């Protein structure tokens, strides 16, 4: 306690230097806290866009589905029964269940002009186009509970209202490329020959199709997801000859971080014929992205911390030089070397505690305010409108509250060690 009192008084001795050191520590801590808060907010946007806008937190498939998703996913389907949905809905943490079929399809647009009577071909610019899409067949009511963000992203119209609707949703970049426009709601459907044709091979390889219109557009969630479309589940089941069957259940869970627990419970409840994955397992690129961001944050934090701590080292070395005779006196009257080290480390600790507390408090205030207001900024590679709401986790607060004072104390170790190695007989002779 005597050493702590002495440490505090020593810091107050050269107020200007202590204030500058403290200010550097506060600015560094505020900057780190704000950066962490912003990265947290951006990562949340990325994850929310994917999980609540597209995937759901947990997905259930027939065993082997993920491994074969690019070859024969329709063969690994399952009966969409009320019992199965109930079984999933009863798992603790599951708040909604949405059935889906993921399938590859072709979308053909009509010719822009009638075929010439003379049998000649239309110029290429007037011919209809055909393109491959990755379609997701969904139940709009169930899906609204599992991926609630998706509806808010839809542009130019509305998501189809029923599973048997004849309108589909296309990625807006993809639709532009195909020169397909949203069919205005409430207006009569165009003639059949002026509608889009959605074609898909069923499990036996037979190509089936239905006429559809584009009911709404959906922006991209992430890079490379342009050729996608949403199709009413019943419509897809008719085309694919899969009435009453689905390839996937998507689950909404609460709280969000309960996904691994829900996965394990679902796997246990469904048995070995099924496979259950969390969103992070299905989208490992998000983990890579957030890990990269975390790594960059660590590097930047490390640089910030190093600059601040070097400032403390410098200030402490100056302090040691100024107090050589005083240190000699302390040693002469019986203070041990370890106590000299403790004294200087305590001075660093006090700066660290005060600077850390003020910096974290100020940073927390700024982050909370920014989180309340929100920063409009799309996630990387996404075209959906997103508002980043910075936030700080309790774990970061605790680690910063511990880490900053500990770092400041460690920064004082070298100056403290130098002070402790002074020989009293020489230190006392210093002017």
């Amino acid at each position, binding site marked *: 306690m005597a050493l702590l009192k002495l440490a505090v008084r020593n810091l107050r001795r050269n107020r200007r230097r202590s204030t500058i050191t403290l200010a550097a520590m506060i600015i560094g801590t505020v900057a780190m806290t704000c950066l962490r808060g912003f990265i947290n907010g951006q990562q949340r946007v990325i994850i929310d866009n994917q999980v609540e806008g597209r995937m759901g937190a947990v997905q259930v498939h027939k065993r082997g589905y993920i491994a074969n998703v690019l070859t024969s996913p329709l063969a690994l389907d399952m009966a969409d029964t009320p019992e199965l949905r109930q079984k999933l809905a009863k798992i603790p943490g599951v708040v909604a269940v949405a059935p889906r079929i993921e399938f590859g399809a072709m979308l053909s647009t009509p010719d822009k002009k009638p075929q010439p009577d003379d049998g000649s071909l239309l110029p290429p610019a007037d011919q209809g186009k055909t393109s491959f899409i990755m379609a997701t067949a969904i139940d709009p009511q169930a899906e609204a509970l599992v991926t609630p963000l998706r509806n808010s992203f839809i542009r130019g119209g509305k998501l189809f209202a029923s599973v048997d609707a004849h309108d589909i949703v296309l990625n807006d970049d993809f639709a532009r490329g195909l020169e397909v426009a949203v069919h205005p709601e409430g207006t009569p459907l165009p003639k059949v020959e002026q509608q889009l044709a959605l074609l898909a091979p069923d499990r036996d390889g037979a190509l089936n199709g239905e006429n559809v219109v584009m009911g709404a557009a959906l922006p991209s969630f992430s890079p490379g997801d342009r050729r996608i479309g949403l199709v009413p589940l019943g419509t897809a089941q008719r085309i694919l000859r899969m009435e009453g069957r689905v390839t996937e259940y998507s689950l909404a869970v609460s709280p969000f971080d309960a996904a691994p627990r829900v996965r394990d419970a679902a796997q246990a409840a469904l048995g070995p014929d099924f496979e259950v994955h969390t969103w992070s397992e299905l989208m490992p690129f998000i983990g890579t992205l957030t890990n990269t961001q975390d790594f960059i944050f660590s590097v930047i934090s490390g640089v910030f911390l190093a600059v601040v701590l070097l400032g403390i080292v410098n200030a402490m070395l100056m302090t040691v030089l100024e107090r050589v005779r005083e240190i000699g*006196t302390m040693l002469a*009257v019986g203070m041990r070397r370890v106590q000299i080290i403790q004294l200087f480390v305590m001075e660093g600790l006090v700066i660290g505690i005060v600077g850390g507390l003020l910096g974290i408090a100020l940073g927390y205030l700024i982050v909370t305010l920014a989180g309340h207001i929100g920063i409009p900024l799309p996630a990387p590679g996404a075209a959906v409108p997103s508002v980043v709401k910075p936030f700080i986790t309790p774990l970061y607060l605790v680690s910063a509250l511990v880490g900053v004072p500990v770092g400041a104390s460690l920064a004082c170790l070298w100056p403290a060690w130098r002070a402790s190695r002074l020989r009293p007989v020489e230190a*006392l002779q210093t002017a």
Partner: protein
Amino acid sequence: MNLIELKGIQKSYELGKTTVTALRGVDLSIAKGEFTVITGPSGSGKTTLLNIIGCLDRASAGRYQLDGQDVSNRDFDDLAGVRNQKIGFIFQNFNLIPVLDVAENIEFPCAVRKDAEKPEVLRQKVERLAEAVGLKPYLHHKPDELSGGQRQRVAIARALITGPALVLADEPTANLDSATSEQIIDLMLALNREQGVTFLFSTHDARVVKHAKRALEIRDGVMVP
């Protein structure tokens, strides 16, 4: 038994490529309760001798017994303990800690002990000592609020707070005016007389030498018989 027993103390320094010998086999005995002065010209080795006696430095050769204990080959922290328990220091420049007030400066050697007394017990000792050296009204003053004489009184009180066997004073009156020097010498004489504290000085000051019960001279690193 003598308080200080030095036998054949030598001290050499490496100064670049040359070796400088400051003490060339000093033999010295000082009994408890003595009021001794060591004089000698600059460079004679008196400060070096005082540093060794004060356990601030170690002899290159020879044997040193302080209060019956051989302290010749103790390590740094051991010597710190010896200094804290057995020796009080009074410096020419007072060497008070500027951020501590008078009371805190006086109690400092006791406060840094592992087994420091309770603050209230320590404060009673400080008040008694402050009264003895005439500093009672200044207990909460900082050193820069005191005169030179008052600062040296604080240094004397700090030297005595641990109840040391020996008080070493290196030129204690060098930075004081005549009147203050007299007061400080009188104070130390009184403490020697009334409390039996052993004082050992190094000084050039004839007034201090005049009051000493025993005056020793060192010249070229050896005691003058």
